[in-house]
């Protein structure tokens, strides 16, 4: 390996990157746009759920129950309807996700000392929202129920009743349970996967397609020099992207960064090496830009999105899929990112993940260099 040749290849690649200003602008915007998109667009904090109310009694009691829903920031009563078909239409068309039906003999049966059921019709086509609706509305109804019981007991002369149990919940790491703090650190992995693999996947394939590979083959450059030279500019772009994502997440969206910056950038450099090497390998194998881009999508972006624990929890997946996830480098990077941002842990706690990333980087880079042949078939 000669420095001079390495520098020459890197310089050629940088010129090529800079010359294509349109791609360069898009690449520079990518971390910003992705962070903004995920910061604002993807929220798992479900609030203001549109609901219909069908109060078949219209008494003081039923209104008191509805007050609990009005006061909650999780629900927004968009319409008070007066017949059942209206409820069905609302749910079918998606105008409401949830409808509460209070029976016509609500207060009468409460006065009799019965346990009255209020029906909640829920559009469960989105199971997660449905789950959260059930949780919140159950909370509102049981608080109301408790109130009713205490009032009733007081009327029977049984006073100063304490509720038997109080749940004292402490949330660690993400105290306000903001989905933003959970999602944004993982966006860095997505951006890196895109920049790293997509761009490099095309660099070699492009040379083959345009016929400039023959010119490269005729030079004395060695495969290792070619790999390193071609990847260095993209490495720089990737590290800059990490810094941009991290800056925007912490400064604009106020995601806490509790760990060390060195941990963050160390892990990023390792992960970037993995995706760059992977992109290079794909482009060596594919030889066509169209195929390379599609393979890069399936091989890197998708796993970084799905099998890394970015949004979908790994421990909820079937065992086979979980097994596959161990071969996804983004999984380890995502764990490190969430650890550094939210938990504030360091290399010591995360050493297994660091080792895994380093192993992948070494393995994939070796395979990529070895599979690259300076030969025209």
């Amino acid at each position, binding site marked *: 390996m000669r420095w001079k040749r390495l520098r020459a290849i890197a310089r050629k690649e940088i010129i090529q990157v800079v010359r294509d200003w349109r791609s360069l602008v898009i690449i520079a915007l990518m971390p910003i746009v992705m962070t903004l998109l*995920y910061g604002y667009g993807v929220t798992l904090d479900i609030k203001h759920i549109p609901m219909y109310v069908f109060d078949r009694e219209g008494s003081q009691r039923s209104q008191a129950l509805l007050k609990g829903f009005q006061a909650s920031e999780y629900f927004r009563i968009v319409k008070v309807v007066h017949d059942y078909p209206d409820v069905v239409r609302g749910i079918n068309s998606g105008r409401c996700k949830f409808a509460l039906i209070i029976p016509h003999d609500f207060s009468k049966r409460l006065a009799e000392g019965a346990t009255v059921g209020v029906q909640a019709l829920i559009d469960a086509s989105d199971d997660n929202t449905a789950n959260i609706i059930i949780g919140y509305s159950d909370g509102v109804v049981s608080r109301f129920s408790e109130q009713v019981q205490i009032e009733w007991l007081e009327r029977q002369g049984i006073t100063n009743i304490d509720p038997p149990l109080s749940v004292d919940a*402490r949330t660690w790491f993400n105290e306000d349970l903001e*989905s933003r703090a959970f999602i944004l650190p993982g966006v860095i992995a997505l951006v890196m996967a895109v920049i790293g693999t*997509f761009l490099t996947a095309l660099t070699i394939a492009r040379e083959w397609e345009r016929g400039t590979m023959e010119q490269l083959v005729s030079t004395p450059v060695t495969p290792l020099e070619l790999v390193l030279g071609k990847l260095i500019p993209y490495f720089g772009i990737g590290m800059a992207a990490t810094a941009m994502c991290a800056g925007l997440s912490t400064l604009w969206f106020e995601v806490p960064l509790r760990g060390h910056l060195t941990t963050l950038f160390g892990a990023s450099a390792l992960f970037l090496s993995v995706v760059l090497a992977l992109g290079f390998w794909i482009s060596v194998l594919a030889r066509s830009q169209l195929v390379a881009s599609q*393979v890069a*999508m399936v091989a890197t972006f*998708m796993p970084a999105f799905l099998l890394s624990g970015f949004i979908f929890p790994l421990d909820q997946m079937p065992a086979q899929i979980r097994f596959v996830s161990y071969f996804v480098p983004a999984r380890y990077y995502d764990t490190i990112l969430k650890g550094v941002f939210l938990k504030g*842990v360091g290399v010591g706690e995360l050493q297994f993940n660091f080792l895994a990333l380093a192993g992948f980087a070494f393995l994939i880079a070796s395979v990529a260099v070895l599979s690259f042949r300076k030969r025209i078939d």
Partner: protein
Amino acid sequence: MLGRLRQMLVKEFIQLLRDPKARFVLFAPALIQMMVFGYAATFEVRHVPSAVLDLDHSQESRELIARFAASPYFDIRYRLQRREEIRTLIDASDVYLAIEIHPGFAELLRKGRTAPLQVILDGTNSNTALIAYGYVSRIAETFAQDQLRDRLNRTDPGLVAVVPGVVLEPRPWFNADLLSRWFIVPGLIGSIVLLTVVQLTAFAVVRERELGTFEQIMVTPIKRSEFILGKTVPFFLVGLADTAVVATVGTLWFGVPFRGSAPLLLLGAALFLLSMLGIGLLISTSATTQQQAMVTGFFVVMPSITLSGLGTPVSSMPPALQWICEFNPLSHFLVVLRGLYLKGVGLGVLWPNMLAMALIGAALLAFTTTRLRKSLD
């Protein structure tokens, strides 16, 4: 006219199907994505890894823990002796939830006072934490109710039968078992078709330009409309075939019910593909290299999927983003897909979305045609 169009189509199909790697790209990524996403994308929260620390060792505390152990939502992996162990387990992500029962728990309950139940949650994944907390409260709620009735039973046995109460009776429609797969799979059909078709179309024209075959086409007597039809019809057919393949996998493999009408699905897919072809061609005619086309394509695809309601409901986004979603063909197609799959509704409910897709598609294709005129001159 028809003769020339036929020739153009024959050429396009040969180009599309000649290369075995390119043939692979037409269907394989769609299928792989469907299988992986279908299994991996789940928001369900079951078997949450948990730990319990029972410092009371009473009958009551054991009963409460037994209720957690019996619930399918919790998987009690550790029974701890010391409080410090909680910290270690949560730091290492071995458990997401810890339940702590303080000494004196049973005594407080027997005295009729409020006994505290301490719950520690790892909030890193805010969604899992929130849903798990919902399950904890529900178990605590029923336990408290039973304790209250027990207490009353001891003092005034006659009153227990007539204590009033209100309970929520949730009726989740369309997806009674709250399966994530039923929500995700129909949405995947739209997203996968978008990914495949936009990428393929985006390469269609720029590839000819980069390879220099564009000039050869220009010297033939082919007309602009014939050229555009020749470039879009094959991808339109590929898109329909992809929809059919992915939809079949969704129904037969993942067992998601299809409750609507198949012709309506075909109509929806056709209208959706119009916009996809429009976007793809627009990218292809404006890009000068394949790399540009790919990067731009990704830049369009990514926000389209994020702002479509695929994983998170549109109604939780900020108003400005909800407004943007109205112009996103995918978000309309997802409403159609979920309406047809889960709700089984017809054109009466879905016509606004169908109309929106038709309008967006027509506008995009018209704009692309005028742009192409300029670039051809």
